[in-house]
């Protein structure tokens, strides 16, 4: 767990805990908490999915989670943030990503939480291997970081393109 001035981030092989996320951002000055809970679904592109293995560059992922949350804090400075990603295998229904943002009002809570999940999908060094009911498995395509190697001045914060397969 990394902590930094209203931000907590976590990359873990332990089950993600919704209550922990909620408690991490609780603040008497903040009247709303928005959460995003990403879970493994049982289907993808017509195939029956039994689970997903999450391959993670642990140190870089923790750094990037913190960076994303700091960016959010720059936009919504009164909010508090918790962002965690799971590492390893999960059955269908398992929680893969967990975000909580508390803010004085609902608008900042919704917007900041949305910002964090969209950036996670585009930037976090995580790779998904889907496992299917017929015993086969496949790595999912994703978002290339090639533009990030030149500079971090990505041109927008548009929503995830949808190629990576788990748009909860």
């Amino acid at each position: 767990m990394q902590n930094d001035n209203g931000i907590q981030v976590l990359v873990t092989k332990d089950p993600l805990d919704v209550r922990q996320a909620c408690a991490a951002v609780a603040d008497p000055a903040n009247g709303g908490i928005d959460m995003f809970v990403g879970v493994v679904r049982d289907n993808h592109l017509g195939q029956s999915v039994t689970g997903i293995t999450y391959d993670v560059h642990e140190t870089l992922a923790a750094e990037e989670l913190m960076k994303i949350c700091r960016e959010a804090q720059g936009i919504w400075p009164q909010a508090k943030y918790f962002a965690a990603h799971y590492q390893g295998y999960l059955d269908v229904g398992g929680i893969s990503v967990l975000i909580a943002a508390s803010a004085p009002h609902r608008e900042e809570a919704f917007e900041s939480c949305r910002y964090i999940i969209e950036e996670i999908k585009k930037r976090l060094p995580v790779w998904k291997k889907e496992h299917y009911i017929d015993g086969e498995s496949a790595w999912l395509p994703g978002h290339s970081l090639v533009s990030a190697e030149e500079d971090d001045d990505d041109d927008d914060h548009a929503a995830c393109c949808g190629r990576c397969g788990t748009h909860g």
Partner: protein
Amino acid sequence: MKTVTITMRLYGAFRKYQDSLTLSVPAGSPVAAIKEALGKALGPQAKDLVMDSVIADDRAILPPGFVIDRDSSLSVLPPVCGG
């Protein structure tokens, strides 16, 4: 010519080749050259994936011109799909 040893960790779709490999490159090679050496080591079937990937150390993604002048532990990051 002095060479340096790069221990490269592989992630995601690269794991079908192996989990890590070692490259020897001339000292002072830029990251772009290391990426090229990685592509040669993995073979033509990995060419597109290597081109879509970046090289990182444990702190950040390294730009193509970043020079490696000592033995290093790096990672190759294919396109990501967190969440």
